[in-house]
């Protein structure tokens, strides 16, 4: 069509180069020293794949493509640049969702292009089309729910109703049946029903999952979108899509398992398990009755805590999501510097899933220039608590809940936690007594060792800084 069109062989060769760069990129992304360059290598591979596609003989017109890329690039750059660090997890969910949505839209468009003229589609493209429409739609709507939960547009706690799993199973079966009908009849309504059913199923799949499990869910849906992209590659007979999509499908699945393992949860457990079933719904209620039994929390003032910190030998800071929302990382580092100037040893205990994403806390504290050697991961931190005078819990909740060790009824039972209650004193900085993201009560707060300092984490830490200076 245009004089610049390259031969299909040249284009496929360029796709092969792009695929190699994507592979090298993922490899480098999985090691700390090379991660940043890995991302850039992958981006270069992606650029090559996109640019060479412009010269494909299959493309007749450019207006639509250029306009679409321009609009998408503006939205993509703006959302990636403007988002606060704390909102990164939901951005990943959003970007993942639109990728799945793109796969579903392509499937529907291809179905429309091939079906009416050719009558019944033959099996090969059909399977790919149905698969990417199904998986892409689930990934799209599921990711949007994950986004809404993390953005707190929807409640983070599991939303459940009786017989949910039966309803979900029937819905899924009906959706697949619509896909089969779409393939065997001429009526295009079935592909619309397939997409509609898959969209609803995606919502139903993620609604009953608690906010604390969202990282695992996003990783799972990420793998889903990868497989949808691979299926699209089968439909379009395009190796770049097959390789890129499959790599993400496979590595995303493994990553999901690894993330689940860090929380001591299997994927099945996250998707259909404890948080969504009966024990979870009775959990918070039982805990509230516990409050009624007259268990008391001990509230303290910032000045009391400042004195306690100033005369400690070792303080361990346990950061959590509260630190992130309050943007308290810089104030926290300032507090640590004040304490170190007085000879107090300060360390940070980072739970693998503290915050809303693994590594969330490392990123924030690194941003505040907290020296890396002070950051201890869970295995190194736990032996330090018995040797510490104060464990200062800044907006962390579920990752410190002793119920994970002691209460088999608890939805988080078995999750490895930070043993903050082994420290001589525990000070918890928290906005209110509201339960954490998992929606369950934290017994730590009723421990006689524990003192609560209520308020915004940053405001509280700033008061502590002033208090320590005054001591």
């Amino acid at each position, binding site marked *: 069509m245009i004089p610049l069109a390259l031969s299909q062989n040249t284009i496929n060769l360029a796709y092969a180069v792009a695929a190699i760069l994507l592979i090298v*990129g993922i490899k480098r992304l999985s*090691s700390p020293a090379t991660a940043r360059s890995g991302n850039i290598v992958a981006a270069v591979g992606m650029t090559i794949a996109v640019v060479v596609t412009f010269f494909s003989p299959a493309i007749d017109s450019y207006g639509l493509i250029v306009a679409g890329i321009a609009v998408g690039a503006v939205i993509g750059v703006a*959302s990636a640049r403007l988002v606060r660090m704390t909102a990164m997890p939901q951005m990943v969910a959003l970007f993942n969702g639109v990728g799945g949505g793109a796969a579903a839209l392509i499937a529907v468009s291809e179905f429309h292009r091939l079906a009416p003229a050719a009558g019944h589609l033959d099996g090969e493209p059909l399977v790919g089309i149905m698969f990417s429409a199904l998986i892409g739609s689930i990934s799209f709507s599921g990711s949007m729910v994950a986004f809404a939960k993390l953005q707190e547009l929807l409640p983070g706690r599991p939303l459940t109703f009786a017989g949910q799993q039966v309803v979900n199973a029937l819905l899924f079966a009906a959706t697949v049946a619509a896909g089969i009908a779409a393939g065997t009849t001429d009526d295009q309504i079935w592909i619309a029903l397939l997409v509609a059913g898959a969209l609803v199923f995606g919502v139903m799949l993620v609604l009953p999952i608690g906010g604390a499990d969202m990282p695992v869910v996003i990783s799972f849906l990420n793998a889903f979108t990868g497989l949808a*992209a691979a299926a699209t590659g089968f439909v379009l007979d395009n190796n770049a899509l097959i390789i890129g999509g499959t790599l993400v499908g496979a590595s995303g699945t493994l990553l999901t398992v690894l993330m689940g393992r860090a929380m001591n949860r299997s994927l099945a457990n996250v998707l259909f398990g404890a948080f969504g079933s009966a024990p979870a719904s009775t959990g918070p209620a039982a805990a509230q009755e516990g409050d009624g039994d007259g268990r008391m929390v001990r509230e303290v003032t910032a000045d009391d805590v400042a004195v306690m910190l100033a005369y400690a030998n070792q303080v361990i800071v346990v950061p959590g999501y509260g630190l992130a929302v309050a943007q308290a990382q810089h104030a926290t580092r300032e507090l640590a510097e004040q304490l170190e100037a007085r000879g107090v040893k300060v360390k940070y205990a980072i739970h693998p899933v503290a915050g809303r994403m693994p590594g969330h806390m490392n*990123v924030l504290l690194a941003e505040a220039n907290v020296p890396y050697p002070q950051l201890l991961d869970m295995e190194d931190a736990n032996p330090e608590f018995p040797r510490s005078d104060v464990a200062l819990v800044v907006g962390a909740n579920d990752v410190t809940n002793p119920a994970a060790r002691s209460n088999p009824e608890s939805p988080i039972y078995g999750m490895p936690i930070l043993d903050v209650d082994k420290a001589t004193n525990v000070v918890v900085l928290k906005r209110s007594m509201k339960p954490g993201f998992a929606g369950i009560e934290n017994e730590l707060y009723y421990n006689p060792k524990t003192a609560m300092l209520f308020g915004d984490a940053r405001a509280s830490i700033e008061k502590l800084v002033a208090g320590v200076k005054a001591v």
Partner: protein
Amino acid sequence: MSAELISSLTIFALAMFLGFELIGRVPTLLHTPLMSGTNAIHGIILVGAMLVAGSADSDLEKILAFVAIVFGTINVVGGFLVTDRMLDMFKRRPGREDGE
């Protein structure tokens, strides 16, 4: 089965195997950036959207393909930029040249 399908399945199987092997021992610290980076990589769906848009016949197909291109581009551009921002946070940290 067509010859194209067989070669596609071969590539699929190898890529699957490679995907599992690639990220064998990734430290927890990198789980989120790795998820975000692979998230950007499935933005390769943009290539599919471009091919579909370039040969779309009807208005419906054009609209679907246009939205798919917008979505795919957001996935690619946003995905890589957010990953870069995350990893950028690590680089100023002193004394972490040798892994972990």
